């Protein structure tokens, strides 16, 4: 019964989305307030209906209703409750339902909290959001319906892919989708602004919270995925430049660029058409991501469904939205004149450089990702583009970005003296170089990667600290003023510092990881990176829906015990798949990582042990970046702006922007 209700709600939501896509837009063009007013209730109803459909599907998973094909294919009665719930989006159909749920949620957000928006803009934004919703509802209903029944319900299901039965990966998709789909909101704002031919400071201010939220969720989603890969795949890799990873990384890079260019629009009314273009491209990359994951065009480790029909449908959606938006852009972009003037050395210019570097970096990732396809289609060559290419071609842009970031953050708007900012940063630069040189001297003559990474990390972190301190002005009570600074200042500084932390972590991990692979019998002892490891015992254990080979390692340093580690090798009988559960002793400066492998013919077990320096800095930095985004998002400026705009009829004026 619930299933039919959910199915019905989904169809209704599709129809509501169609109405929302057409009526408010026509109302706005024909200046009929009644038609425009349809947008808000439609967005709310669309969200509630989609929520109903989503809850119905969740209920089917929770109660293991195997009459649903989807539940049968992806669940099992013995699966823990947490994974029954997260299993809802652990498959193609369910994840698409989550996707449209979030599309509807963002639309409803504009309806509920967008009181400050002028009615025309609001109606158009919701209308475009309705179009996006309608397209994906149609995709779900016509090609990937989650509510299809089985004629004869089987006794038990086929279980969820064991690799997905993990807390890190269970919550990776919702965050990622919040990010991807959050970019649909900036896309809607951009298209609405193009239709209105009006982009001003107020527009920049309205778009920024959505960009910030999308970027923040993408950061968390990507970090969760990378953390999962680190502890689950069994060799401590954290990024593989796989097409699907790149698909999430490109929107992240573009939304980071958009975040910064929207500031320029908001504060200085420049870079307008560029910002609009970025907003369009950012969502384009989100949809390319959906396409890559689900079409099977590019082979990837974690592709979902690979079905040409679905791929074609997604490609069609992508083509219609990108083609439409870019055509509109080509027609209207010239109407958006920049107002703010600024000198060559100014914060505006630095943010422009930031945008160029992030844009080019995203472009490199894009070209590398689709190159195998291009080469096969046009040059008849089957080739691969992998990690070594991306490491070489992508990293320089990030290094450049890290180098100029602290300088750019210190420059004032309009017209700046570069010398002054450099003067302020003299000490930070000196200390960072010293750290880099020290590290270079300490390591035993290997690559420059580690020293450069640690130099950049130190430079970004100390630069961020100086940035924060310089905001407190002069004279007495600077420390007190530090805590009264706007949250946006704190947000910027924390996020920039976080980038430094991540860069240092990545470099240290790539440069100085130590690995050991050997056969170990019970009671054997071996050493790695100053730690000694003893295999105390190996035994079998039964989990809720798996069997496990568990080992106990005692890790000692000198006389003291550091940790008792319990790596596992699990076997999931229903899916007939093994997984490795690494045991990790987390530390601030290093991780110790132990994996137990197969029993050997000669007795003993294959054991891999790793010493991973600064491993947690990678994800710690990502958490800081997300936290910085959150701090900026909570800045009272956005609330004040919403309040102020409500009292005014004219949404913007250059005066407000200054």
């Amino acid at each position, binding site marked *: 019964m619930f299933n039919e209700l959910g199915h019905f709600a989904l169809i209704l939501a599709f129809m509501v989305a169609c109405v929302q896509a057409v009526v408010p837009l026509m109302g706005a063009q024909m200046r009929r307030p009644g038609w425009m007013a349809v947008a808000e209730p439609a967005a709310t109803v669309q969200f509630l209906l989609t929520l109903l459909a989503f809850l119905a599907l969740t209920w089917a998973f929770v109660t293991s209703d195997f009459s649903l094909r989807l539940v049968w294919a992806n669940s099992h009665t013995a699966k823990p409750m947490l994974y029954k719930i997260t299993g809802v989006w652990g498959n193609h159909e369910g994840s698409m339902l989550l996707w449209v749920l979030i599309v509807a949620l963002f639309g409803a957000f504009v309806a509920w909290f967008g009181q400050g928006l002028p009615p025309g803009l609001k109606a158009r934004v919701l209308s475009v959001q309705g179009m996006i919703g309608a397209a994906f509802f149609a995709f779900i209903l016509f090609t990937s319906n989650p509510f299809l029944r089985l004629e004869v319900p089987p006794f038990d299901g086929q279980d969820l892919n064991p690799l997905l039965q993990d807390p890190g990966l269970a919550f990776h998709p919702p965050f990622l989708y919040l990010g991807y789909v959050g970019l649909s909101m900036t896309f809607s704002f951009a298209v609405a602004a193009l239709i209105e031919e009006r982009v001003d400071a107020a527009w920049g201010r309205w778009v920024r919270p959505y960009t910030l939220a999308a970027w923040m969720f993408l950061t968390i989603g990507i970090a969760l995925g990378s953390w999962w890969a680190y502890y689950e*795949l*069994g*060799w401590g*890799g954290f990024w593989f430049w*796989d*097409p699907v990873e790149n698909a999430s990384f490109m929107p992240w890079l573009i939304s980071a660029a958009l975040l910064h260019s929207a500031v320029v629009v908001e504060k200085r009314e*420049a870079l307008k058409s560029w910002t609009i273009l970025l907003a369009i491209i950012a969502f384009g990359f989100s949809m390319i991501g959906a396409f890559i994951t689900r079409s099977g065009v590019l082979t*990837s*480790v974690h592709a979902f469904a690979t079905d040409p029909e679905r791929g074609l449908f997604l490609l069609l959606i992508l083509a219609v939205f990108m083609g439409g938006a870019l055509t509109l852009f080509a027609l209207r972009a010239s109407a958006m*004149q*920049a*107002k703010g*003037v*600024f*000198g*060559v050395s100014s914060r*505006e*210019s630095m943010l*422009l*450089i930031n945008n*160029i*570097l992030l*844009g*080019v970096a995203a*472009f*490199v990732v894009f*070209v*590398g990702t689709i*190159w195998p396809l291009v*080469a096969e289609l*046009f*040059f008849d*060559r089957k*080739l*691969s*583009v*992998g*990690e*070594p*290419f991306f490491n*070489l*071609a992508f990293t*320089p842009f990030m290094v450049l970005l890290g180098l100029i970031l602290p300088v750019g953050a210190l420059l004032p708007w309009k017209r700046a003296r570069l010398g002054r900012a450099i003067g302020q940063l003299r000490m930070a630069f000196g200390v960072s170089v010293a750290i880099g040189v020290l590290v270079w001297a300490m390591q035993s003559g290997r690559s420059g990667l580690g020293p450069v990474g640690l130099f950049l990390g130190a430079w970004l972190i100390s630069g961020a600290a100086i940035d924060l301190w310089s905001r407190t002005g002069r004279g007495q009570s600077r420390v007190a003023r530090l805590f009264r600074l706007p949250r946006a200042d704190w947000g910027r500084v924390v996020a920039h510092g976080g980038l430094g932390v991540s860069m240092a972590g990545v470099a240290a991990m790539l440069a100085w990881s130590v690995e050991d*692979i*050997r*056969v170990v019998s019970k009671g054997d002892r071996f050493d790695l990176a100053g730690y000694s490891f003893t295999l105390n015992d190996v035994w*079998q254990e039964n989990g809720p829906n798996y*069997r496990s*080979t568990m080992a106990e390692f005692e890790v000692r340093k000198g006389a003291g015990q550091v940790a008792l580690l319990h790596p596992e090798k699990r*076997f999931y009988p229903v899916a*007939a*798949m*093994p997984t490795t559960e690494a045991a990790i002793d987390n530390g601030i400066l290093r991780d110790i990582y132990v994996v137990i*492998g*197969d*029993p*050997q013919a000669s007795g003993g077990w294959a054991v891999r042990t790793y010493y991973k320096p600064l491993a947690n800095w990678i994800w710690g930095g990502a958490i800081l970046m997300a936290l910085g985004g959150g701090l900026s998002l909570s800045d009272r400026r956005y609330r004040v702006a919403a309040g102020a705009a409500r009292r005014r009829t004219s949404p913007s*004026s*250059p*005066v407000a922007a200054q």
Partner: protein
Amino acid sequence: MRWLILCLALLASPVWAVQPDEILPDPALEARARELSKGLRCLVCRNENIDDSHADLARDLRLLVRERLVAGDSDEQVIEFVVARYGEFVLLKPITTGANMLLWAAGPLMLLIGAGMGLVYVRRRARAQSDGVGDPGLDADEQARLDQILKG
């Protein structure tokens, strides 16, 4: 029961990434083998290098690389040997000749274009400042609104 689990585990997971029995006794050779393996793609997997891959074929390739190294091949010779048999598809780092020039040059070229366009834009913004172009001042509505604000 125990042997059953063992059998199942062995059936389901043929091999692992680099196994202890594959490792060469000479650490220098082994280090070179690892480095080479990182640049070679496992042909039956999705975008994984043979060093990380669990597939049987990846193991065969790892052993092949080590065999060639023990036979005294240089790094380039090993790569040539593998490419001659499996095609350039095995290379995770595409070669830099022919059409692939485009791939390698894409980033730097785009940077040049971006920097050029950015420079033109910034110069125009900066010049707008000196001769007043680009700042048309306030239109009538905005002027009225400004007056209203200034009056309080």
